[in-house]
């Protein structure tokens, strides 16, 4: 079941729309748990043995799995139903967002004057093609609409349905899990300035402001639409965040001006060229002794071929064309290319902060990372993957 958003910008959906949202949320839960388990069993029981016989060896790559599964009826129904569910997520929330739009700008203006956050837009910014030219996540209209906060509203309301409760009450479990990982794992580290890059509606930037109330938290995105919404959303939650329209590959911040650079589900939407440019920028704006931390899908090198194939579904069928190219990389090599020392690289997995008791969370924070088919995957036994590095102290 989706959580009901608890901030003032949430759209007031009609009862039938709410029923559609409940249905598609349950449908996604069924696809991602029951159907996913059924499809994996189908692979292990029938597809893989046949594939091994025809190859004369063990399965070695996700491409072999994908090619074999594309002929399988279970995969066809899984994919077709999942693709439809993705469309239905947006269709279930758009009527309510449309009805809310005439008042949305006024609401954001009103909220803007109450609270400590700010919004700085840059109408001259070139919107990169991966945002301007693509309806990422099959979200109709995409994320680049700069005229209103509509894209932010569709995304926030849609994500509440899409995540089927897995991302916590304010869709901020990733931000809470990552920031609390830092707080518990490095108790002597007290960041004064934190930057969330590619923050969309600011749901995770706001979580950092919650975890580190004494820090100054900033969020950037290239889309004015999502930032307008992010600003109103954070103000409504009483969490002061400063949002800027900016490209993560060309940050308009001073050298050595942040203690934490954070990203969440961001890198896999960028080309490798942009990922590399971003890490160079992240290294530049971090203070010596500062922390780069990225929440992402786990790298393919950590997973079995079937699990690689399973997670890369979105690359092929959910308009996320760079997803696999990122997951095929070694994250350690990527940040080293950005200027971080190999010895300062770290990686970890943590359970969901919102749904894990204190002791279990702390135990996981201090344990070695564990990778399995559930890592980074929205499912009942989810845990998040993160990696990063420290900028060398002078």
């Amino acid at each position, binding site marked *: 079941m989706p959580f009901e958003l608890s901030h003032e910008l949430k759209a007031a959906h009609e*009862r*039938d729309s709410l*029923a*559609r949202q*409940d*249905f*598609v949320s349950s*449908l996604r839960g069924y696809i991602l748990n029951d159907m996913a388990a059924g499809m994996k069993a189908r692979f292990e029981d029938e597809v893989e043995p046949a594939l091994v016989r025809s190859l004369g060896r063990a399965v070695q790559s996700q491409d072999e799995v*994908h*090619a074999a599964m*594309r002929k399988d009826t279970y*995969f*066809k*129904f899984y*994919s*077709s*139903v999942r*693709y*439809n*569910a993705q*469309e*239905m997520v*947006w*269709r279930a929330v*758009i*009527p309510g*967002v*449309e*009805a809310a*739009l*005439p008042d949305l700008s006024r609401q954001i203006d009103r909220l803007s004057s109450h609270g400590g956050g700010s919004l700085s837009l840059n109408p001259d910014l070139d919107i990169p093609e991966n945002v301007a030219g*693509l*309806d990422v996540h*099959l*979200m*109709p*209209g*995409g994320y680049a609409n700069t005229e*209103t906060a*509509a894209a932010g509203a*569709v995304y926030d309301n849609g994500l509440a349905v899409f995540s089927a409760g897995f991302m916590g009450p304010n869709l901020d479990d990733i931000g809470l899990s990552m920031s609390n990982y830092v707080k518990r794992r490095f108790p002597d580290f007290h960041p004064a300035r934190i930057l969330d890059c590619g923050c969309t509606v600011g749901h995770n930037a706001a979580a950092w402001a919650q975890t580190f109330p004494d820090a100054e938290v900033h969020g950037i995105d290239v889309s004015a639409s999502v930032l307008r919404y992010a600003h109103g959303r954070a103000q409504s939650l009483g969490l002061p965040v400063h949002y800027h329209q900016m490209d993560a590959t060309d940050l308009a911040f001073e050298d050595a001006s942040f203690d934490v650079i954070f990203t969440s589900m961001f890198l896999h939407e960028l080309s490798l060229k942009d990922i590399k440019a971003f890490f160079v920028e992240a290294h530049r704006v971090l203070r010596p002794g500062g922390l780069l931390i990225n929440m992402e899908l786990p790298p393919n090198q950590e997973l079995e071929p079937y699990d690689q194939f399973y997670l890369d579904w979105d690359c*092929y*069928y959910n*308009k996320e064309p760079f997803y696999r190219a990122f997951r095929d990389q070694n994250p350690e090599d990527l940040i080293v290319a950005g200027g971080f020392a190999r010895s300062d690289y770290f990686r970890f997995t943590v359970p969901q902060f919102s749904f894990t008791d204190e002791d279990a969370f702390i135990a996981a924070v201090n344990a070695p990372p564990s990778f399995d088919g559930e890592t980074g995957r929205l499912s009942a036994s989810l845990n998040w993957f993160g990696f990063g590095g420290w900028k060398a102290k002078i």
Partner: protein
Amino acid sequence: MDSAAPRLPVDAEGRRPAFFAEDGVDQLVTMVLELATELWVLRERVFVIEAVADRHGLPLKAEVETYAISEAERAKLEGMRVTMMGQLFRTLNRDHRPVDADGKA
């Protein structure tokens, strides 16, 4: 919907992937899912209606069985059915192409 309200797109740009080799099967899946959704919407509404009625001591179920639908109500229901059909067949005019060897659509 207020006709003056701004309209947002409801379809993502581009062609939808066809997972099934047989033409039309992917669209049929959409139709079945849209039907299932609307069936659920109705079931949830009926559930709520009966609960509300019960809370007010109204013997709703018995009255529903003997209710006579008026001509005006029939016209209204016809309009609702047409809207539902539009949802049901919304993919018929969308381009589909088979997923190629690389899985791209």
